[in-house]
């Protein structure tokens, strides 16, 4: 950086002027306050990690403790008993996330690009065609009937992918992004050079739109990774159960058992076999860890998603 020295001088200056900061005492007070809240946001996850490393006997006698009397990695070794189901669920989750994100981004960005072009004759029609979805929601019941009865997608992996394969809101975000960030002159000159519209889109516009694409990809990927709702509605086979839904099913089996104490015998075997306390928490840790480890690096894209679109900066 050429202006290196200047840069540091400037930085120092701002810290000294303190135009927009609290004085020292107030600063300490608010640091503690915000710090406590920030800690409350990650504390439950830390607590669940601790529980996952607690021995079963310690859990039975002391319950969930902040500092267990006996540590153990058994929660994780017991995961091996559930290996097949967990690996299958992990595979489904990863598959759905990867394929779903790809489809979502392809559908969303190509639709958005088409309606962002001033020379597309029907752009107004297609814009309204997509915007109407933001006004009205079709509702759970008709969507369910169409998915199961008309499209016959019940209990297929597509039931996990297709309902989220387009985000109308992201169409609008990307349309604005294409209009603002991709210079019209570049598109015009490629057109003069004889490039087809399709080629302009894939080879010139998309590379320029990487920040926008990254934002909508991350939102789509997060949506797919965290989705349990479509599985809840449409999935019955054990081999199509994604991680989040697996956790949910284990949970509801436990609730069922505690509410019908005598019936526990009926539930053993297969997916219904209930893993031990620490193992369940180990599963929570495993399905949360990928997000916990990656979002700090991507968070600026999530935040910029709101400012590149229609919402005012």
């Amino acid at each position, binding site marked *: 950086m050429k202006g290196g020295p200047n840069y540091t001088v400037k930085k120092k200056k701002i810290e000294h002027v303190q135009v927009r900061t609290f004085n020292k005492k107030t600063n300490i007070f608010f640091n503690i306050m915000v710090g406590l809240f920030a800690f409350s946001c990650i504390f439950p996850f830390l607590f669940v990690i601790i529980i996952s490393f607690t021995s079963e006997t310690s859990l039975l006698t002391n319950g969930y*403790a902040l500092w267990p009397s006996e540590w153990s990695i058994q929660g994780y070794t017991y995961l091996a008993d559930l290996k097949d189901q967990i690996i299958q669920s992990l595979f489904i989750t990863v598959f759905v996330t990867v394929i779903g994100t790809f489809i979502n981004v392809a559908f969303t960005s190509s639709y958005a690009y088409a309606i962002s072009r001033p020379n597309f004759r029907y752009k107004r029609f297609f814009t309204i065609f997509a915007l109407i979805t933001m006004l009205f*929601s*079709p509702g759970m019941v008709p969507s369910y009937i169409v998915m199961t009865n008309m499209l016959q997608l019940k209990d297929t992996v597509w039931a996990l992918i297709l309902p989220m394969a387009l985000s109308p809101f992201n169409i609008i975000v990307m349309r604005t992004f294409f209009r603002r960030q991709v210079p019209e002159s570049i598109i015009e000159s490629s057109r003069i050079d004889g490039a087809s519209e399709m080629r302009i889109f894939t080879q010139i516009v998309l590379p320029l739109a990487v920040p926008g694409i990254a934002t909508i990809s991350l939102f789509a990927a997060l949506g797919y990774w965290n989705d349990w*709702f479509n599985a809840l509605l449409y999935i019955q086979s054990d081999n199509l159960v994604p991680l989040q839904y697996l956790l949910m099913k284990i949970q509801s089996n436990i609730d069922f058992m505690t509410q019908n104490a005598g019936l526990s015998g009926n539930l053993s075997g297969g997916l219904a076999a209930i893993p031990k306390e620490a193992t369940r928490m180990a599963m929570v840790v495993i399905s949360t860890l990928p997000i916990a480890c990656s979002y700090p690096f991507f968070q600026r894209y999530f*935040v910029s998603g709101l400012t590149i679109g229609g919402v005012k900066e």
Partner: protein
Amino acid sequence: MAMLRNLWRNKAFLFMALPGTIWLILFFYIPVFGNIVAFKNFHYSSGGFFQSLRESPWVGLDNFKFLFSSNNAYLITRNTVLYNVAFIVLGLIFAVFLAIVLSELRSKRMIKIYQTSMLFPYFLSWVIISYFVFAFLSPDKGLMNSILTLFGGEEINWYNEQKYWPFILIILGIWKGVGYNSVIYFASIMGINSDYYEAAMVDGASKWQQIKNITIPQLIPLISILSILSVGNIFRADFGLFYQIPRNSGALYEVTSVLDTYIYNGLTSTGDIGMTAAAGLYQSVVGCILVVLANFIVRKFDEESALF
């Protein structure tokens, strides 16, 4: 002919819009049309979706009459609206408060750390959070009861006690979203010109006066737009929060039932498709009116920020 020629000329763009268009037809327009089941006594027939629709007899507004004659309609509407009002009002206050405090802290590094931590819950699913909550509220093993007994209190059977749940749900709803919202407000505060603050300092304005007279007035447009837009969604509940966190506990239904959970339960367990669809249509229509109204108001304030 001219029409065909125009279509041909726009073939590349039409092709790009095609996948999205098919998706919109299959997953939006046909289901919207499918809402006519709310006016029918719906039964599946062997001939598939359209035949089922055609063969189910019309019942006019019977499904709606049945829905609104039960106590449920009032209960779920009340719960949905009141919870959402709480989320909007308290969520706004906390988000703006946090954003202002963050913007005034001295250490840029600590700001970053706080923001990253506060964003964490936003990225988690309600399934995961329901496990978190259970670690605290489990009647026999949970941390809350351990703490209560440690201080000589009585253990509480959290999942059976209605009175705590409005607070639990509101706290969780805000806890999950406030980090994200405060980051938006934070970005807006960072965009305020420092000259205002310098001038205020020269005039001897205190920190509180600066916040009251510069920061908050500058945030008002963004605050009003985001709030009005969320008022448009006041009829839509966060299904995950109300379905996952109370763990389907029957004792809590009165305070945890919202429109979305009611519709889900109707669809999956009671099997009264017609009435459930009526509840869904009621939600969609009122929601639609509210969104249009909210957008109309936003337009009055600031045309740029309106959705349409």
